[in-house]
């Protein structure tokens, strides 16, 4: 997993609430057996017209946002299915950070497994950043994970909370499985105890 320390880039505004994982990556693209290559299908049904050409009105097709690395999104981003193809598609497009008032639980988890930082801010803070993001190309935001702060183009800074363990993993690009396997003796001990107490499992 790629580390996430500090990111400076353009942020795309997506004020719609309840952006679900079917919107982020429609099911016809879940048939891959790979993790990469999904960026071209990100937000497919909003991003492309019936004939396959780009929808010029969609935010990520507009010049300032084609290389956006941050999304500022409406409430409850990533609701719906558990598909990790959603963060894979965002990452493949180049999005490394999403800022919203709230995220769906599984999507929120999946981001951290893929080097994407989901930032939760208060409604008025997200609204302020949304307006700043609408300014486009010159509107560069900085997200600093170590200091847990987002800096808007005008210098306004908002602090965010993040789980210390997840922060540690993201800052260092750590693989969860290796970390857990260090605790193999504890898992062995648990299994031995469980097989005595709940042998039917």
């Amino acid at each position, binding site marked *: 997993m790629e580390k996430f320390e500090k990111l400076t880039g353009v942020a795309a505004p997506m004020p719609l609430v309840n952006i679900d994982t079917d919107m982020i990556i429609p099911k016809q693209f879940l048939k891959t057996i790979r993790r990469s290559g999904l960026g071209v299908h990100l937000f497919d049904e909003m991003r492309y017209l019936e004939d396959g050409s780009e929808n010029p009105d969609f935010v990520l097709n507009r010049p300032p946002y084609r290389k956006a690395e941050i999304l500022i999104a409406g409430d409850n981003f990533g609701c719906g299915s558990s598909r990790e193809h959603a963060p894979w598609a965002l990452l493949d497009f180049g999005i490394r950070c999403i800022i919203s008032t709230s995220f769906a639980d599984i999507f929120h988890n999946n981001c951290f497994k893929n080097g994407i930082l989901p930032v939760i801010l208060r409604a008025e803070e997200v609204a302020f950043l949304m307006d700043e993001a609408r300014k486009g190309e010159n509107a560069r935001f900085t997200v600093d994970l170590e200091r847990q702060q987002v800096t808007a183009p005008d210098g306004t800074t908002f602090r965010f909370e993040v789980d210390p363990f997840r922060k540690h993993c993201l800052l260092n690009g750590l693989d*969860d499985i290796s970390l857990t396997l260090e605790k193999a003796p504890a898992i062995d001990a648990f299994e031995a105890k469980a097989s005595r107490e709940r042998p039917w499992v």
Partner: protein
Amino acid sequence: MTSPKTLYDKIWDAHVVHEDDDGTCLLYIDRHLVHEVTSPQAFEGLRMAGRRVRAPDKTIAVPDHNVPTTEGREDPAQMTEESRIQVEALDRNAREFGIHYYPMNDIRQGIVHIVGPEQGWTLPGMTVVCGDSHTATHGAFGALAHGIGTSEVEHVLATQTLIQKKSKNMKVEITGRLQPGVTPKDVTLAVIGATGTAGGTGHVIEYCGQVIRDMSMEGRMTVCNMAIEGGARAGLVAPDETTFEYVRGRPHAPKGAMWEAALAWWQTLQSDPGAHFDKVVTLKGEDIEPVVTWGTSPEDVLPISGVVPAPEDFEGGKAEAVARALEYMGLEPGTRLTDIEIDTVFIGSCTNGRIEDLRAAAEVLKGRKVKDGLRAMVVPGSGLVRAQAEEEGLAQIFVDAGFEWRLAGCSMCLAMNPDQLAPGERCAATSNRNFEGRQGRGGRTHLLSPAMAAAAAVTGRLTDVRALI
């Protein structure tokens, strides 16, 4: 004296392998269910790291999302190349890693969340995960069950644990009794209507109250299945005699002395009196009407007697979302829900693909016909549900009414197989999500109960089933 615990607290405590100072826990997983869409990258990860599946005897795989539901589906021509590759990858991975497997041509094959309980893999007090958000279904047994992403699938395959932080406790109580024609699907949709799709975020819901106690296991599974649509990590129902009766004698349920030992523990799995809940929602069973969704989020739900709302009825970002939803759905504010004409009816899915759902729909369809020109299909949740429905004569009722009688799979719930809506096609569906494009690009979905779906099939529009029973 220890403080009173909720059911969630008890199951959680029984599965903590290790706890860090900051509360991050390593949680042991008793059952890992696997399907073909969210697992290939996880198995590939194991292979690349030279890892094995730690507990193959606790890992159960079945293909469901991609499989065709028409006769002769073993013919590769029925699947797209990509679907076939995914199903074949699961076949190969199941064999290579030595996990339990129900291939497409096995009568026990079906939707993973129907197969698990049916085969007795899901038991009270367990932790159950699957790379699928509707894993919440298994909470009906008093098992802590939730969906995970593919990285976590790989983590569970390799370690049989998950890194977790504990969620908050939420109680949803449904008191009293349901009126005739009101079903578990109406209950679960009504709860989401009351709490919103983010109302349960960060929580595990325990459903309780007389309405839940009176429900069958099939009904409880329908309720818990949609806990995720309310944003909750999981839904739970405390196990009782109804649960034990359902589990007893299933192929992988404990037997003999082991059954007695298990039962003794299961009977302790209730929230203690005075246990703390961070959030409490109470609904009166008598107040719940048959409901349908009108928009593109499961929270966009109203009693069938209602009218399509206007964007101005909502505030903030939701007003914009409603305007977008109404345009997508092709609906005008003020339209009576019962005036909405439909093109297609889909009965099935992990929400409503069990025997009781088929019985409820058949009850309405008996001696009636599907409206001319309407496409109607019923997709049983497993091969065994299908066989039972044939034995009970339900299949014949569906066929006589004009329904297509399909083989088991996820089918048109998410349209990864050939069962899809065309742009603009309007469907009354017993599934769980009405998101844009969910059932096919441009397709319009109204979520409802199996009985309501059957009523809509007969009249050709959204209909109050109470007029037909």
